[in-house]
């Protein structure tokens, strides 16, 4: 791909499978944690982020021999964006004639690229920078970035999970006294994935009157026992399950 850096390829095999393209704000890029200095990815909201996209205003353009550096500002911070110059692109004059609209200073543009850290300074190595045709894309992007941020920090929106929990959801909601926001599976929004999984397992595993043992849950869910215990603790606290014959055996509290 023109503009992509050749040093991306050698050891990025592992990440191709889980490569994602994440809409972000520049502040999120500044706040992202870098697991170790050579890591190919950053962590944003607890999730790996490799490719990112954002919309911002170009404050400054400086053309170097090997790349063009854009200083971009999206209202949440500023970030340098480097686009590597593809030598071949300048070969033919016809190419220039059909040239795509060029980013200009003070104009708005969307960037696609990869966050990088170099000498403790962050920049985005961009594959593409494209001037905006429609200013509504600024709003679109910021709302999309917010939605993705909320997905990672609070779980999927209720509407997306509502259908799955339609059966029994009505009764469960009636019993979830005090929980204003009831997420999927009748659990409050913000419940961790592990806790949701354990709740799912306790509801579905075959069991007698005394419920299921944590060992059984761990095996069925392929989880650590400690992880299961933490989840059962959470669920116990929510009043969703209760311990039966001993402290490590639980049954569902609803109906």
């Amino acid at each position: 791909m023109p503009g992509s850096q050749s040093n991306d390829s050698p050891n990025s095999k592992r990440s191709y499978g889980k490569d994602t393209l994440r809409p972000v704000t520049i502040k999120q890029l500044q706040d992202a944690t870098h697991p170790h200095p050579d890591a190919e990815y950053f962590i944003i909201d607890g999730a790996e982020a490799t490719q990112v996209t954002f919309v911002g205003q170009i404050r400054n353009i400086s053309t170097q021999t090997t790349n063009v550096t854009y200083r971009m500002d999206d209202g949440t911070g500023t970030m340098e964006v480097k686009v590597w110059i593809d030598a071949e692109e300048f070969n033919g004059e016809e190419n220039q004639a059909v040239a795509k609209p060029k980013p200009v200073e003070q104009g708005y543009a969307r960037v696609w690229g990869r966050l990088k850290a170099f000498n403790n300074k962050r920049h985005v190595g961009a594959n593409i920078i494209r001037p905006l045709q429609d200013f509504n894309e600024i709003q679109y992007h910021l709302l999309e970035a917010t939605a993705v941020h909320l997905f990672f920090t609070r779980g999927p929106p209720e509407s997306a999970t509502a259908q799955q929990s339609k059966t029994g959801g009505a009764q469960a909601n009636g019993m979830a006294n005090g929980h204003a926001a009831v997420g999927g599976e009748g659990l409050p929004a913000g419940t961790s994935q592990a806790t949701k999984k354990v709740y799912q397992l306790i509801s579905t595993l075959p069991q007698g009157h005394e419920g299921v043992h944590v060992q059984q849950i761990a095996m069925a869910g392929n989880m650590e026992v400690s992880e299961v215990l933490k989840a059962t603790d959470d669920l116990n606290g929510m009043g969703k399950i209760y311990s039966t014959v001993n402290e490590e055996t639980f049954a569902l509290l609803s109906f």
Partner: protein
Amino acid sequence: MSESTPRVTAPYLEQFSHQNVRILGKVRQLRGEQATIDAGGNINVHLNRDAHLQLNHAVEIIGKVQNDLSVKVMASVDMGPEGNIDFNAVEAVVDATHRYHEIFYTKEQ
């Protein structure tokens, strides 16, 4: 970080006095070096020399909120006739900016 310019509308101005903000509004009045922008209410702005505002156009302003809740313009971008911009989306962005400020700006306190 002070580099950020949070997106605001008129009701937020008081909360951001003496800070740099970003306002997307409709140009309602031009009076020489001053103008009135409608963004969730009228905002009085003091123009700089290279601000070229047009009546009934959408404009994005970066500026500093003054004591009297007017805004001193540092930069402005004309965004074309106001019908081109979906102001419901603009309103939603301002709401999200302050509701989920963790991805937009650092709250001072």
